[in-house]
């Protein structure tokens, strides 16, 4: 059946959607006269870029939560790690344009009287190195963490809580000015990326397109994994892990692989995010952020890749609008939304649109499965 999944119709839709993402926004922004009602004002471009990054992040979480049933409450950490790697590159690009005009040291290091660059900053003046780190750092971190956790069969709520502890610890760590990541102020005041001024509208379009491509790539990766045999192994272990072991599959390895892949995607999202919002600081590690990611996914529809994307974009669109329109009330609305989705349509928005009989069946069949897991 995977063959069917990669049929012509899929590629048609995918490229349609992709094209729309890639062409529409630049066109409306640059091509249309600013005063026309269809014109897309400049400030919305990085905003949409940001949404796309969130969408990638949501995808990465959906991959492990929706399909493998592992709820990570620390995915914000991988996102932030990727972001910091990119931020370090951007900091090094500032060069002598910083407040203290030091060609090598970022301002905050000059200020803390650091004499030379700490070793973990080496190489970040090269984009290639930074790009590699963007994927490697979260990946390796996730691999080690996951190896420890899955090998000793930490599951369900326990895993969620220790991932939360992980991001909490990182949050505290990055706050420390002595860590060498700029403390609470984090990394900011970026000048240019690959030689282009990050503030130029054209650069913004470029970053937006990069995010769009990143999203497409992430979507394909996730789709491939979930449609592969491994994908079915994951879904199987979500329902009855021990049974999968008796079939001879190593659930540890399967989980470890997707956990790592998902962390890498999260890192990618972070890296694309930072140059567009212009700052990365420890608050990205805050436990609340990580929980919010899970909320995007469940609003959109858990276990469906499209759902993750839809959820991330819609929730953040709502956030942008509400914080401006109802600054005093928006938390009520947002909180209410979360309660409503989990109660009224547990399958999320996408679940509303596609009424699949098999999902009904799953609902009906859920309790005995859970019970079997207990035994």
């Amino acid at each position: 059946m995977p063959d069917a999944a990669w049929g012509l119709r899929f590629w048609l839709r995918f490229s349609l959607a992709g094209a729309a993402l890639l062409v529409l926004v630049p066109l409306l922004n640059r091509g249309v006269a600013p005063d026309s009602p269809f014109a897309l004002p400049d400030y919305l471009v990085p905003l949409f870029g940001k949404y796309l990054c969130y969408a990638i992040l949501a995808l990465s979480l959906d991959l492990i939560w929706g399909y493998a049933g592992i709820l990570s409450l620390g995915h914000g950490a991988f996102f932030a790690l990727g972001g910091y790697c990119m931020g370090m590159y951007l900091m090094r690009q500032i060069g002598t344009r910083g407040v203290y005009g030091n060609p090598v040291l970022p301002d905050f290091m000059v200020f803390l009287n650091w004499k030379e660059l700490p070793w973990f900053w080496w190489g970040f003046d090269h984009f290639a190195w930074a790009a590699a780190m963007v994927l490697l750092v979260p990946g390796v971190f996730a691999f080690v963490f996951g190896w420890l956790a899955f090998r000793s069969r930490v599951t369900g709520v326990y895993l969620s809580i220790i991932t939360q502890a992980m991001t909490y610890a990182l949050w505290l760590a990055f706050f420390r000015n002595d860590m060498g990541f700029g403390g609470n102020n984090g990394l900011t005041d970026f000048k240019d990326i690959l030689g282009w001024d990050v503030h130029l509208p054209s650069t913004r379009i470029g970053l937006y397109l990069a995010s769009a491509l990143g999203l497409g790539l992430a979507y394909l990766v996730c789709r491939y994994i979930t449609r592969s045999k491994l994908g079915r192994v994951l879904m199987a272990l979500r329902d009855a892990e021990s049974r999968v072991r008796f079939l001879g599959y190593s659930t540890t390895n399967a989980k470890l692989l997707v956990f790592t892949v998902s962390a890498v995607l999260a890192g990618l999202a972070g890296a694309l995010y930072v140059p567009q919002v212009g700052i990365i600081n420890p608050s990205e590690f805050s436990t609340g952020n990580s929980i919010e990611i899970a909320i995007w996914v469940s609003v959109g529809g858990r276990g469906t890749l499209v759902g993750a994307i839809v959820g991330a974009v819609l929730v953040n669109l709502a956030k942008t609008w509400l914080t401006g329109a109802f600054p005093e009330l928006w938390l009520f609305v947002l909180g209410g939304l979360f309660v409503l989705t989990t109660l009224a349509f547990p399958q999320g928005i996408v679940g509303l649109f596609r009424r699949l009989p098999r999902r009904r069946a799953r609902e009906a069949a859920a309790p005995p499965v859970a019970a079997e897991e207990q035994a």
Partner: protein
Amino acid sequence: MSDALLYLNGVTVSFDGFKALNDLSLIVEDGELRTIIGPNGAGKTTMMDVVTGKTRPDSGEVFFRGTADLTRLDETAIANLGIGRKFQRPTVFENLGVFDNLELALAGSRSTWHSLFARLDSAGRDRIAATLERIGLAERARLPAGALSHGQKQWLEIGMLLIHDRSLLLLDEPVAGMTDRETEETAALILDLARDRTIVVVEHDMAFVRSLGAKVTVLHEGAVLAEGSVEQVQNHPRVIDVYLGR
């Protein structure tokens, strides 16, 4: 040490005080069909847990083909040695289709990398089709397993054992909750399977045990009480005590 397929010697398992297995010793020869009976709490299921690596024994040795020390391996490794297991409660993957369930069980590499790039070849496809025919779920292949009836789930699970060539099958009450008709079919199926593999069946239903007509081991309080043909054990005085009480 013997050349027996499955060799348990002095296996003891205790859950906070209560001895589920008490110095159990059991030998299953290659190609044999063995039925294990015993009252509740006799340790039948625990014995299977030990063999399949779900439970680690406190003491005693468990060997497969005389060489593989099962007390040192985890479920995955043991399964890959060729030991299959069917649970008491049918456990199929409710959210996957019947076809997918079988595909997962299909013999072949289990490595994570492989399953990431694996593609189902025509041979495998035929294999699955054949099995579907055999367990009579051909026309339900696309349904999610969760939608099957209890009996059908039992069959699907047996099918999953079939399609994955295992040299040793452990069947935990395969006919629990089956109609008489289904029970008969199952018995036939098991006998058929028994031709080319070793099978250990745990069962309450004496009628069913008799219909298998195989060597019977009676477990009681975590140890072997008696062993022999159905008739022998049925006339065994202690067995009568245990079953009918004094």
